[in-house]
């Protein structure tokens, strides 16, 4: 085949251009840590990576939501812990006061302490965190209990989505803790009144009442505890989901470092060889004779 000079030079030029662009692309991949530099480099991987990115972001959202939910459950648990303590104290006082040896004056003194306990329970039941009442259910912008102990809040506690398709209620509406089946405020009111009026039968009823009020609050605490556990489970799940999505994304569009450096070295030597050869152009020719 005849070889024309133009063709020879054109081929060297094209070859150099091609090898140089391969070299530059290899440099970009190695330095950016991305195998897919533009969507068209690998459309399928690009598309799948977008889905994984969305999944990872979703898992990140859930993790943040879980943190918020945990904060609320912890706050509710703390408040109920205090309530349980004072109710135990009320129960002890009721037992003490039910003794036959108690004088009317002594009972009146205990009544004052019971009134204080009632006030502290009411304050806890109306506790707010960040402007939101812990035990108001959905209606959390106003005290859920009025001075008489009547419940004014919402019927349900807000739920949060803590994992794909998994919702957990982060809290309990106050009426389930304080109003029924045992009405905590009524129990304390009745006990105080019985002590003040030196009504021995009433005081004895108060022993039973404070015991079941205490048990009711403890039950509510363990219900909240179960929800905290659910959050922990969800937390492990979304963490795994996030890690998996990030790994998948990296696998799709990220670079295998060893492979990237190998390719960089290959591209560099191919380019260097082509430069070497081109530098020897035009080669032996009759023109030089």
């Amino acid at each position, binding site marked *: *085949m*005849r*070889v*024309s*000079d*133009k*063709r020879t*030079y*054109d081929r060297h030029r*094209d070859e150099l251009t091609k090898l140089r662009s391969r070299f530059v692309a290899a440099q970009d991949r190695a330095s950016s840590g991305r195998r897919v530099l*533009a*969507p*068209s*480099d*690998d*459309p*399928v991987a*690009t*598309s*799948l990576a*977008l*889905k994984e*990115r*969305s999944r990872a*972001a*979703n898992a*990140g*959202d*859930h993790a*943040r*939501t879980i943190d*918020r*939910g945990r904060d609320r459950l912890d706050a509710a648990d703390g408040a109920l812990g205090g309530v349980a303590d004072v109710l135990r104290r009320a129960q002890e006082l009721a037992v003490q006061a039910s003794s036959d040896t108690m004088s009317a004056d002594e009972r009146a003194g205990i009544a004052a302490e019971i009134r204080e306990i009632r006030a502290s329970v009411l304050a806890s039941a109306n506790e707010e965190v*960040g*402007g*939101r009442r812990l035990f*108001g*259910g*959905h*209606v*959390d*912008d106003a005290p859920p209990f009025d001075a008489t102990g009547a419940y004014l809040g*919402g*019927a*349900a506690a*807000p*739920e*949060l*989505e803590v994992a*794909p398709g998994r*919702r957990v209620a982060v809290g309990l509406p106050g009426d389930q803790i304080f109003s029924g089946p045992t009405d905590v405020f009524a129990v304390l009111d009745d006990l105080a009144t019985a002590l003040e009026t030196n009504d021995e039968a009433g005081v004895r009823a108060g022993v039973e009442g404070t015991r079941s009020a205490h048990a009711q609050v403890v039950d509510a605490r363990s219900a909240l505890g179960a929800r905290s556990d659910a959050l922990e489970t969800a937390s492990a799940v979304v963490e795994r989901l996030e890690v998996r999505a990030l790994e998948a994304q990296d696998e799709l569009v990220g670079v295998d470092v060893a492979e990237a450096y190998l390719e960089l070295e290959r591209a560099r030597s191919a380019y260097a060889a082509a430069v070497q050869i081109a530098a020897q152009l035009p080669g032996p*020719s*009759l*023109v030089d*004779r």
Partner: protein
Amino acid sequence: MSLFGLLGTGRNGMASAQAATQVTSHNTTNASTPGYTRRTARLEPVLGPPEPGAGSRMVGSRRVLDTFVERRMLGALSARGEGAARAESLAAFDVVFGDSSSDVGAALDALRSAFGDLASSPADPTAREVVLARARGVTDAFRSASDQLTWAREDANARIGGEVDAVNERLRRIADLGREIGKAEIAGREASDLRDMRDQLVREVAERVPVQTIEHENGGVSLLLSGSASLVSADGEVSELVARRTGDDVTIEISMSGAPTDARAFLDGGRIGGLLDARDGALAEARTALDTLAVDVANAYSDAHAAGFGLDGVGGRDFFARPAAVDGAARALALAAGLDRDTLAASADPAELPGDNRVALSLAGVSNALVADGGTRTLSDAYASLVGRAATSVSEANLRRDAADAAVDQVDALRQSVSGVSVDEEMVDLVRYQRGYQAALKIVQTADEMLGELMNLKR
């Protein structure tokens, strides 16, 4: 034959060697000229009587070419032009969908995240502001992507206009050159340089639109668009392409037997064909897909939002303004009128305000629900598949461009092996003709000496 005749033979030899050297020099100095076809000197003997003839003469030079290869070259160039123009035009996709920080998918993820926070704190003014800001981020991302796709379309239209001008200019010069060649070749000599110029112009036209050529005796050439519509006729009449703006796009017409006709059907190759294909194919498809996604986003969020109640206890409001039409929906996507921090709905029941977050939850769930593409996939999946399709069209266009480049390269190798200049060859010829010149000079010298000796005979 007389001794003076011998002098004449020597003179002819010197003249033809000199003329042939001129051809070699022309070849050598044009070794890199695009479109140059190497020439061979046409030497022939000067016939007698008297016998045996009076030496050699050059009757001109001729281009060395293979018409079959030249014809294949036109087809290959059309394919290369088409491939290159399509790939250039669709490269816009890599920019529109390559930026992963501000794209529609990321904006939708951010909006979902903001709704998640709203569900955690349904009455919190900051959470509400963030939802509105993220929603504006979604409308911005849609507008930006839509604008870039529109620019790509405008760019294709502008390029089509430019290519049409380039074709028309070349058609006129081809017709002019045809006439010049006709005049120059009356003496029976080939007007090689004019033909090279003309053929180069024809190749440049072929790179832009698919053409076939028919050579005529008089040196003219007819150009047919896709083998059917005449661009340059046998008698040098030019039918120019006419680019016309109709609506948003440029359309191309050609005059066929006097009547302007839509040329789209003939433009299935060349740069113009590639641009039309990109503009009306993948670019238009991506635009529609983006608009459709915008409609799905607007309706899905508005449906979920309308089920809820704002802090003011009023329900039934949209979140995004519902688009009136699919076309242009991505560009026009906007928050519903009157939506603000207080009217934003998070609650499913006006009696359960403000802590009820059920609608915020369902709004956060919108992006994971099958609401896009007629309820077959999620919004982010629809975006991912839109990007996947666009990227596929780019990589396909790149592959086709590379294949077309390789095909041109192959035909060019053939063409160069026939018509390209090899400087070494020319050097050999140069020595050959120089030697011929020296030999012819020797003949003159010898004839002169012989004449001198004849003159001395009388003394």
